[in-house]
């Protein structure tokens, strides 16, 4: 059961370091849930955002005496994997109450350099398999562009269809006072924005921000005595197809094609049962692949599906009701925010962005370059 959530200050928080984001989010999750800090005996975090944010340093910094620890780092979807692991650990009795935390000061410390800043400078010696890609000057945006181009080639997907995803998420960002960008945009705005790596425009790409989050899970029994209506982990699964983009086996299919059906099977649910989707929108194309792979439409039909407006506010499958990574908050890894917004929706605490009668939420994280996918089905009113 997820019983506590907390967000640190975002999208711009120059007063916080990466590890302070963890601490602030944890304090807010404790206040949200009523969990005593001393009750936390399990800890999951990914690290990788700043010096000193590795799992053992963070456990020490936050003062977590863990009986169970998981430092799975698979990129931005790490937190969906953590939920799977934490739920299993609680079920197995390895621990009772698990904290997931994340924090990043990317925007304040590094600026907007993540997508095209240039990881590999001339003259640098590159170790490991990345040496087969580094000489060619690909960017992070370029990696997703390779996927978008192939999808367009195979299925006739259009830039307009991809743009619809960004337009819908921006509409929700308008309802979130914290979102980085809130002014409405149109398809024409997306297509007129600067091309970063064909066929992806600037507005097909997520923002860069600061931010952090914390999620607390515990047993169904303990959840009864806490402040918030508990949210059940109904099914979780993860998988990977590749890490580096040059190794992607099928440029139009992600590991969600395997792990999302697995999560649905564990939950005894189908895509028809889902009331809202919180999908990792690093880029518009990311959402399109996840929609198809999770079974909301057939492979290749994502563009037409999106164009029908289902993902919009008032549609039957509202997407990223907090404004997503595309418009609100993306501090480098977004996976924990997918869980937090899902919980807000299932508790009925999403304010103007509330999806009516929201019983089932699906969070799907994508780590790396559509490499490692984690799917988590969450629900209210059922026990795990």
């Amino acid at each position, binding site marked *: 059961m997820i019983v506590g959530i907390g967000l640190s200050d975002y999208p711009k928080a120059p007063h916080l370091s990466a590890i302070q984001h963890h601490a602030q989010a944890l304090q807010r999750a404790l206040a949200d849930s009523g969990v005593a800090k001393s009750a936390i005996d399990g800890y999951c975090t990914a690290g990788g955002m700043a010096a000193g944010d590795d799992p053992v340093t963070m456990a020490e910094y936050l003062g977590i005496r863990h009986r169970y620890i998981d430092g799975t780092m698979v990129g931005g979807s790490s937190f969906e994997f953590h939920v799977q692991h934490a739920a299993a650990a609680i079920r197995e009795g390895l621990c009772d109450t698990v904290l997931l935390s994340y924090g990043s000061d990317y925007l304040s410390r590094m600026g907007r350099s993540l997508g*095209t800043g240039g990881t590999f400078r001339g003259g*640098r010696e590159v*170790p490991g398999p990345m040496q*087969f890609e580094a000489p060619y000057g690909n960017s992070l945006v370029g990696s997703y562009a390779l996927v978008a181009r192939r999808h367009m080639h195979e299925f006739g997907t259009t830039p307009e269809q991809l743009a619809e995803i960004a337009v819908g998420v921006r509409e929700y960002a308008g309802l979130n006072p914290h979102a980085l960008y809130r002014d409405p945009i149109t398809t024409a705005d997306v297509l007129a924005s600067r091309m*970063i790596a064909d066929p992806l425009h600037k507005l097909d790409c997520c923002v860069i921000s600061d931010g952090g989050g914390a999620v607390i899970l515990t047993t169904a029994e303990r959840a009864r005595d806490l402040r918030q209506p508990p949210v059940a982990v109904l099914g979780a699964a993860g998988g990977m197809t590749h890490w580096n983009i040059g190794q992607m086996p099928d*440029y139009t299919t992600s590991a969600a094609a395997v792990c999302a059906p697995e999560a649905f099977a564990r939950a005894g649910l189908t895509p028809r049962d889902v009331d809202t989707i919180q999908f990792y929108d690093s880029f518009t194309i990311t959402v399109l692949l996840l929609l198809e792979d999770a079974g909301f439409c057939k492979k290749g039909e994502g563009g037409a599906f999106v164009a029908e407006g289902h993902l919009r506010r008032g549609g039957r499958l509202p997407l990223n009701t907090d404004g997503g990574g595309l418009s609100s908050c993306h501090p480098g890894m977004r996976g924990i925010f997918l869980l937090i917004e899902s919980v807000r929706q299932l508790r009925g605490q999403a304010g103007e962005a509330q999806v009516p009668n929201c019983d089932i939420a699906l969070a799907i994280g994508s780590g790396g370059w559509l490499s490692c996918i984690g799917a988590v089905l969450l629900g209210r009113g059922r026990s795990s």
Partner: protein
Amino acid sequence: MEVVRDRAWGKPLPAADPVFAPFWEAAERGRLLYQECPACGHRQFYPRPLCTACGADPAWAEASGRGVVHTYTIVRQYGAPPFRDELPYVVAVIELDEGVRMLGNVTDCPVDAVHVGMRVEAYAVKAAERIGVPFWRPR
């Protein structure tokens, strides 16, 4: 494949690695290598010390140096030198006639001329002693 030896190399270099080095050394001599498993026939790139399909010891094989653009992007923004001085340029996934895929650049044509399905051939640029880096151009 042709080897260009008189072009200054200002790009990242592969760090020394005993499994990877034969590939770079062969490219510097004009040969484009991939691996094929004598046990199960699986073909793979980049090089590994084991077959990713069955775990046996893979063997080197020489590619024709011909292939097709499987997908591509035109990079129009990149922060670090020397790439930022070469914008825009094409990053593509090339599917070799032998079936394996390699990431690379398609050069020697306007960026807008590149398309999925385009036939390309490999050439190498000498980047350092015993290191040749493959590139691709229209065939």
